[in-house]
């Protein structure tokens, strides 16, 4: 018991504080985003979010008090379990299909959780183990190749769900871990160049054939073969053309941008965001992917700046834990998880204000979502575990 208290006194305080502030912010604006909705299930979303936060906090404490070396020791088993769970999504009666995507595991029709969320943490652990094992020569190319394979495998499974947005987050985690581990700059640059090339290639497949007069039908087949669904194509087109189909596929982007833009310096006031209350921000995505738009509309730039600052504190806390980690595995674990959380923040906000295509990535600790809250808080718990056992007094 004394041991536990001692451990808790060594917690990373900035992370803890930022986490609570962000959770509170999320609950308040989920309340706002769902204020005028008829609740069919009896329990309001913000109340459920409080429940998820409580569960998340239990996981947070659990991981914080657990030595992360247990995780790194079991890294490959955890990774394998994650792959199996991802594969189960495609098994009928176990995987649950919603809105045409198989992202959930179910028990008798009840949604259990999204394995992809579990996999994010598993990947960070396995990459920390791969690159952080004592005495490992990380400058060798074979480790870079293994790292890529280890990342590609679950990413491919997730793309197959399909959930491109979540899969994309995996690669910055790999890059961050490799970079922090001391992989050669050449390798890092090569990866970045490859990623850029892939994006360029995808874009040219979307845009160029039409320019060269390829018939629509053949273009569609080409896109299919390139692995780009019509839905993804449309989102890319909407991103590059702000006036495209404002009543259909362009709706979310246009309305979110109007919500943010009309917020001004101090916003329209809590529960006064017209885009929010009048339903121009779609009800289904308001509390999840577009909760930041509600904050920006109702609290204006002041609210935006505050939220971004708290996120910066969170990231700072995670990187600080990386800096004080007792060993390299702990440090890489913190970097990987920090990179994961950062990617969510950046992509979600950029998407909300129209600077990135709409990908369906939620905002950590603020967006509504059970699995995501629990996985994010678990990740922060692991970072705390590294911190508690860190070498930070010297």
């Amino acid at each position, binding site marked *: 018991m004394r041991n536990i208290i001692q451990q808790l006194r060594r917690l990373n305080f900035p992370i803890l504080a930022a986490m609570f502030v962000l959770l509170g912010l999320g609950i308040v604006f989920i309340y706002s985003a769902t204020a005028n909705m*008829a609740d069919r299930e009896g329990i309001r979303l913000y109340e459920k979010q409080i429940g998820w936060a409580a569960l998340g906090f239990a996981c947070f404490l659990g991981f914080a008090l657990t030595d992360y070396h247990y995780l790194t020791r079991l890294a490959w088993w955890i990774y394998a379990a994650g792959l199996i769970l991802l594969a189960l999504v495609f098994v009928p009666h176990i995987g649950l299909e919603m809105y045409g995507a198989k992202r959930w595991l179910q028990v008798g029709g009840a949604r259990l959780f999204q394995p992809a969320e579990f996999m994010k943490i598993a990947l960070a652990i396995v990459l920390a183990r791969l690159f952080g094992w004592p005495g490992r020569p990380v400058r060798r190319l074979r480790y870079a190749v293994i790292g890529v394979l280890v990342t590609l495998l679950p990413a491919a499974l997730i793309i197959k769900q399909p959930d491109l947005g979540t899969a994309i987050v995996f690669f910055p985690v790999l890059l*961050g871990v490799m*970079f*922090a581990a*001391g992989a050669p700059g050449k390798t890092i640059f090569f990866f970045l160049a490859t990623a850029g090339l892939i994006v360029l290639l995808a874009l040219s497949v979307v845009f160029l054939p039409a320019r060269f007069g390829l018939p629509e039908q053949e273009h569609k087949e080409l896109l299919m073969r390139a692995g780009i669904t019509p839905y993804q194509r449309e989102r890319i087109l909407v991103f590059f053309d702000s006036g495209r189909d404002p009543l259909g596929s362009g709706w979310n982007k246009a309305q979110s*941008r*109007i*919500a*943010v*833009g*009309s*917020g*001004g*310096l101090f916003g329209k006031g809590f529960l006064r965001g*017209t*885009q929010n*209350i*009048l*339903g*121009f921000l779609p009800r289904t995505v308001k509390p999840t992917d577009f909760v930041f738009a509600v904050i*920006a509309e109702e609290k*204006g*730039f002041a609210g*935006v*700046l505050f939220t*971004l600052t708290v*996120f*910066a504190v969170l*990231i*700072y806390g995670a*990187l600080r834990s*990386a*800096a004080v*980690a*007792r*060993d*390299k595995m702990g*440090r890489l674990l913190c*970097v990987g998880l*920090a*990179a994961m959380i*950062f990617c969510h*923040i*950046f992509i979600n*906000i*950029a998407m909300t*204000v*129209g*600077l990135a295509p709409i990908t369906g990535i939620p905002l950590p600790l603020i967006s509504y979502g059970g699995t995501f809250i629990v996985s994010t808080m678990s990740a922060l718990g692991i970072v705390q575990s590294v911190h508690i056992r860190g*070498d930070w007094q010297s």
Partner: protein
Amino acid sequence: MRLTDREKKRLLILALIMFGSLALLAGAIWFIQIGQGHDYLLSQDRQSIRRVRLPTVRGRIFDRNGICLAGNQPDYGICIYLEELLRSGKKRPTARKAWDMVQELARITGVEPQTTLRRINDHIYMRKPLPMPVWLHLDHKAMARFAEISMHFPAADIALYPKRIYPCGALAGHIIGYVGTGKAGEDTERDYHYYLPDMEGKRGLEKVYNKWLAGSAGGSLIRIDVAGFKHDEESIREPVPGGDLRLSLDLRLQRLAEEALAGECGAAVIVNPENGDVLAMASAPGFDPGMFYPHLAVHTWQALVEDKRKPLFNRAISGSYAPGSIFKPLIAIAALIQGKATADTVLKCDGSLALGGRVFSCHGGVAHGDLDIARALEVSCNVFFYKLGLQCGYDAIYHMALAAGFGEKTGLDLDGESAGLLPSKSWKRQTKGELWRDGDTCNIAIGQGDLLVTPLQMAMFAAAIANGGRLYRPRLVIGRKRHDQSEFEPVPPILERDLRWSADHLAVVREGMRRVVCEPSGTGHLAGLPQVAMAGKTGTAEFGRKGSGRQRGWMILFAPFARPQYAVAMVMDAASGSGGADVGPRLGKMMAEIFADERRSAE
């Protein structure tokens, strides 16, 4: 474990990338929220703000004594606020729910539904954010039943619509006119998304003074939700109620004038010679303006339009009649003023006058013998006036008639006025291709030929004789009151022109006209009253084909003779005998009652 420099550097780079990205986001959002914020506010308003025009209450019309001729009465209805019934933003279930509610309400109140599911769907499609009227014109019984249960139907509410009423029914119907539903886009208010129409004057004073009576519409800005239903009211500009009008009409006199015409087609006008106030203006047959609003049945309208007696036609100002002998005083005045005759001028009547191969005869060929002007007026001798007219010359007659207001509209503030017709020599040349002949002058001299006048013109002419030669512009509105004023602001009378008739000349004509009524041998003696001296002139004018025997009966009158208060003109479309015989007794009875009333109120 201590970090190597390389590891430290890499961690720092990672931190810089992440913080830099967040700062970049902050910058981009600053640009969107502060830099372009105004544009986004505009586009947000554009998609969620709707402007609605709010109708206002129409002004009322009173007679000179404050009796209401046109007013408003609350008309009760029930409307449904659709946003209260909203079901998950969808259209169909909401319409269904509204329809269920209408049926439920119908069952409880026992009033048949006045709407259909289709109309509800139309409303949702066309004017979703507005309350949907489902019952209109409900009686008190149905309203009471609804009031009892209204708390169970929060989405339904009592709606109050102003209804135009005409408390005096058909009385002065031609003057008041009527209203119909205004159309959108007829004024400058085209920017409204939703246009709730006002009543609009379609005829009579309701039309002429529509702007004043209508007031100005209000507007409200409502915010709609993404499904287009009303969310709340952003702001409102209260409608300005219309202003009231006070008329020159005296309802008592109006009623007497209409009674004088009872059963006949014709018109009667009573004006105040001192200021041109129209005290009564009757046209028979008439109509009840109340039947036009809110809507008139097609067959009723058809019957009104096809009625041969033309009930919608305001004979008092739109009817052009040959004046006949009532025009003779003008010939007399013209001759006197031109110096072509004096009070002592005597001309001889042989019963007829031969002129260029044609014979112009006195009525029935009676020879009146030697006559002066007064006597000639008294017995209405045609031959005397043929001769006087020829002596005077048509130019003098024409200019005198023009000055007295014939051949042009009087300028009364009512629509549909006719100018009548005062033929000039050039007019005859242009329209008939003929030169003016002495025969034409003879015809005009007895108020026949192409000459046409309106009853109002004749009343104003009688008023000019009565007041010493001042031609007023007749008027119906003597006071206006804006909705925020407590007293009527008087409208000053307008003197059209002073005709500069000398008192001596006028005295001759007035004496002749006095004799018409007051002497037993006068043609209008049937109008005479024992207690009040009056002056007048009768007329019987042929119309239609010559010799068809169809004639109008006319009489003009002013009274009391010494200090005239009333100038009157009355015409009957189809007189069986003559003006004196048909119109005289009716006017006499009317004047008797007017003076009897006056005495009663004086006592």
